[in-house]
């Protein structure tokens, strides 16, 4: 008798393990601080679902460096559902909450945070959503993984890892805060980035 | 004498659902039954193989809306009687709510003449009880009775004769010529704006209710009136279990009341209204499953005497609209036999003999039709229908002979099919299709062959 392995049928490999992710986020946090010359006017807006916990983690790492910063007060969530250009091509999605820090985003340096940068369309939606919410001084983009295949003139300012992929592959990011244990990848319940499928 | 001198030999039909036998039809009369038939047929007789078919007396409908004169876009005497022939009928009663209303000798004679000219079935006009169906003054019932149309059934169907004094007088008056008042039992004040049966479903759908009591209270009143003046009362389209109880009580007391049920009330329930599809809008409305069961039992035990189709064709724009705006009514001539077979015979509640009684013998007796509703015996008028009880067919309103497309059975599969209809010895329907009408004989009144 054989026990079928999870993800049976799909080729998969772990490209970032928990420690790799943590190291990448630490580096990005430092890059953000460096680019911003400190924490002033800094706002981290995560794009649901996985961008938000990444933004929270980055904020904590920034607070580790600058203890004067309350990580919650510089973190927010930016839902882009209603701004997507593919609403009519997919089953209906429910929008999620947009929560901005109390200080708002006007004249701030907003760092958009997402897990995977791919076509760039999500970021395009995020930029539109941002315009409806206020007028930041600067908008930057931080992503855990850039897998290429851009369809719009968009690039990330801070990248955890550049990951060459074929477009038939799927990049799955598992994060403790979002992904239930049962949905975790081959590495177990922790954080990881996995590439699945491909020719 | 009719102009028809052709001979037909029907071979091996089960007579009224009983043993197979041959029937010989000559000159509009059943000339021989059984082994004599083949012997007497001679070589010139048209032979019809009726093995597996049931021979029934031609069906008689006490309740048909032919719409002519006035709404020829909905139906004409011609199209309605074609539909009737296809449905196995050899006589139909044309309801009085035409435009103008059939409340004078002139209008009933017009309808009668149109029926004679069509020649598919015997068309017997029903006379209105009150002028213009307005419920105010009695129409000239005597003139209609004595007209060429020889009216015996009077009804304001579509509206109720609600004035108790007027109803009493009408019941009394028609005794003079052995007429009958066919009452559309609907208390008008209790049914103002009514859209469907009042109960759980109307509560949910927000449609104004048509309570059972509005029918039952009129029937209770009318059977007592009929008893009081010792006259004949016929109750149209009985639809509730409570009405059945009242009729049973009245008949037990010897009151001269007869009652009718429509095929659709034997099968359909108010739950269909949940679709808001006006094809299910009818008056009286579709009721509950309990009512349907009570009606079936009442028809089986004779409390309800007859099937009346209440065939009510409407132009499509009167049904392709909101429920409240839609006209009430369903077509029924071409589905009646199948629906009754499905609801009564295949459920074991009734046999074909009972079917013949409810669709032919009893309605002919109530309408005083001398040459209809007779047994299939030697010397009787040859109003004969052959039915294939094993056939199954899908109801397609677009293919019907009636102009009405408002059949609630559209798309459903029903049992039983009329293959042949003989009207006064002439095959109006052969092989399930219209053949030809009876050649007109202007000299002879149809009711007096």
């Amino acid at each position, binding site marked *: 008798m054989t026990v079928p392995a999870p993800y049976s049928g799909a080729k998969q490999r772990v490209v970032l393990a928990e420690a790799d992710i943590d190291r990448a986020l630490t580096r990005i946090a430092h890059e953000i601080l460096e680019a911003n010359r400190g924490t002033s006017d800094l706002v981290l807006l995560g794009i649901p679902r996985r961008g938000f916990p990444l933004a929270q983690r980055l904020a904590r790492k920034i607070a580790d460096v600058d203890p004067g910063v309350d990580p919650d007060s510089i973190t927010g969530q930016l839902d882009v559902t209603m701004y997507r250009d593919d609403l009519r091509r997919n*089953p209906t999605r429910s929008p999620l909450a947009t929560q901005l820090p109390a200080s708002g985003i006007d004249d701030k340096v907003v760092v958009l945070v997402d897990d995977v940068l791919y076509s760039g369309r999500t970021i395009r939606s995020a930029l539109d959503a941002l315009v409806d919410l206020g007028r930041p001084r600067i908008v930057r983009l931080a992503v855990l993984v850039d897998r290429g295949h851009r369809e719009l003139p968009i690039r990330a300012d801070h990248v955890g890892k550049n990951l060459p992929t074929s477009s038939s592959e799927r990049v799955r990011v598992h994060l403790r805060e979002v992904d239930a244990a049962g949905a975790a990848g081959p590495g177990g319940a922790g954080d990881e980035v996995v590439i699945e499928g491909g020719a | 004498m009719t102009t028809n001198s052709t001979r037909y030999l029907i071979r091996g039909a089960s007579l009224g659902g009983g043993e197979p036998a041959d029937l010989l039809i000559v000159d509009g009369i059943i000339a021989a039954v059984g082994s004599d038939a083949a012997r007497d047929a001679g070589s010139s007789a048209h032979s019809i193989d009726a093995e597996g078919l049931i021979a029934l007396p031609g069906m008689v409908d006490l309740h048909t809306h032919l719409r002519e004169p006035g709404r020829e876009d909905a139906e004409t005497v011609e199209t309605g009687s074609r539909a009737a022939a296809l449905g196995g009928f050899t006589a139909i009663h044309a309801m009085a709510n035409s435009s103008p209303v059939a409340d004078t000798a002139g209008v009933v004679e017009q309808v009668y003449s149109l029926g004679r000219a069509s020649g598919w079935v015997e068309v017997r006009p029903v006379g209105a009880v009150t002028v213009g169906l307005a419920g105010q003054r009695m129409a000239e019932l005597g003139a209609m009775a004595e007209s060429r149309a020889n009216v015996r059934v009077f009804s304001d169907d579509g509206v109720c004769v609600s004035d108790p004094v007027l109803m009493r007088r009408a019941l009394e008056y028609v005794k003079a010529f052995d007429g009958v008042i066919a009452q559309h039992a609907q208390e008008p004040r209790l049914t103002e704006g009514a859209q469907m049966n009042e109960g759980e479903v109307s*509560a949910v*759908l927000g*449609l*104004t209710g048509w309570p059972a009591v509005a029918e039952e209270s009129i029937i209770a009143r009318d059977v007592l009136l009929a008893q009081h003046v010792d006259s004949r009362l016929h109750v149209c389209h009985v639809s509730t279990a409570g009405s059945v109880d009242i009729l049973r009580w009245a008949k037990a007391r010897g009151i001269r009341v007869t009652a009718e049920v429509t095929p659709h009330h034997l099968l359909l329930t108010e739950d269909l209204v949940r679709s808001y599809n006006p094809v299910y809008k009818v008056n009286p409305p579709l009721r509950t499953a309990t009512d349907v069961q009570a009606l079936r039992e009442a028809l089986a035990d004779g409390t309800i005497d007859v099937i009346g189709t209440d065939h009510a064709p409407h132009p499509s724009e009167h049904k392709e609209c*909101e429920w409240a705006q839609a006209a009430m009514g369903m077509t029924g001539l071409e589905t009646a036999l199948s629906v009754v077979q499905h609801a009564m015979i295949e459920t074991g509640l009734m046999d074909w003999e009972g079917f013949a009684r409810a669709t032919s013998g009893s309605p002919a007796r109530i309408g005083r039709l001398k040459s209809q509703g007779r047994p299939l015996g030697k010397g009787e008028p040859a109003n004969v229908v052959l039915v294939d009880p094993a056939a199954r067919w899908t109801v397609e309103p677009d293919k019907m002979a009636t102009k009405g497309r408002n059949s609630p059975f559209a798309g459903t599969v029903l049992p039983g099919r009329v293959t042949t209809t003989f009207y006064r010895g002439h095959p109006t329907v052969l092989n399930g299709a219209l053949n030809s009408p009876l050649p007109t004989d202007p000299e002879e009144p149809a009711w007096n062959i």
Partner: protein
Amino acid sequence: MKHLLSTSDLSLVDTLQLLDVAEEMAAVGEREIKKLPALRGRTVVNLFFEDSTRTRISFEAAAKRLSADVINFAAKGSSVSKGESLKDTAQTLEAMSADAVVIRHPASGAPARLAASGWIDAAVVNAGDGTHEHPTQALLDAFTLRRHWARITGTPSAGTDLGGMRILIVGDILHSRVARSNVWLLTTLGAHITLVGPPTLLPVGVGSWPCEVLYNLDDAVATRPDAVMMLRLQAERMNAAFFPSTREYSRNWGFDDARLALLDVMGLDDTVIMHPGPMNRGLEISSAAADSPRSTVLAQVRNGVSVRMAALYLLLSGRGHHEENRGAGGALPRTANRMTQEQA
């Protein structure tokens, strides 16, 4: 969900999704720029066969906030056959490529008829049909109640139901589309409903509804309700012998000053008073009750736009219903298929 015709079609999952999306829409309503591009290029037709400026404006605001094009079609009964006009009007709208038709109609079932007729391919939203239903009114009532319930129970609004809540619906139940939609929706959300009114204004068959029925308003208030929803008494009922006089109606079934005071005496500090509007002040509700801090009347109006945005968004965004059904294999429950498979 292809159409929104009746709250009885909505599962708990559907309902919670609608209310949760409405929460996000409400947040948009508090921004400076109250507009989302989600329905850009879509056409919403407000087809009103009955005057209702309030409902029409609310739907119009909802559609416009989602960037849909809005066409207002006041199709009050034409002189020819009204049936013809519904079909013809529908086909006109179809020819104009309407994506959604918001219909208000005096005939019960007219939206269902439009949705099932094949005359039109657009999504149909029932904005009140005769004495049948008014689903978006019930959704905004549920939304208002849920926010209130969340506040007094100290739970977040999103995702929660109305389990344990006791609600009175008072007045002309027989002719009320608001009452019908609320009974189905609020019980789906777990609330306990009691209908209160004169027996003449309760439908025959109400016994089969999932709620209690009382004739006496004071007995009903004694059950310590969390919310009292007063229904509007339509003028045409007042002279139709459903009750002896408007004064007697008001005394027995109006929420007057004495009953308002009784709530305080009973210590029912968190009990709210609702009314779908427009109100007959002094008849079914006193001015003091309508204007008291317990009154949710204005919150209901405000929330109307949010729930209508949610409904239009869920009906119109996403892949077309027809192609989706082909893919779904038909095994999913009638209305749940679209709304539950969101996590794509």
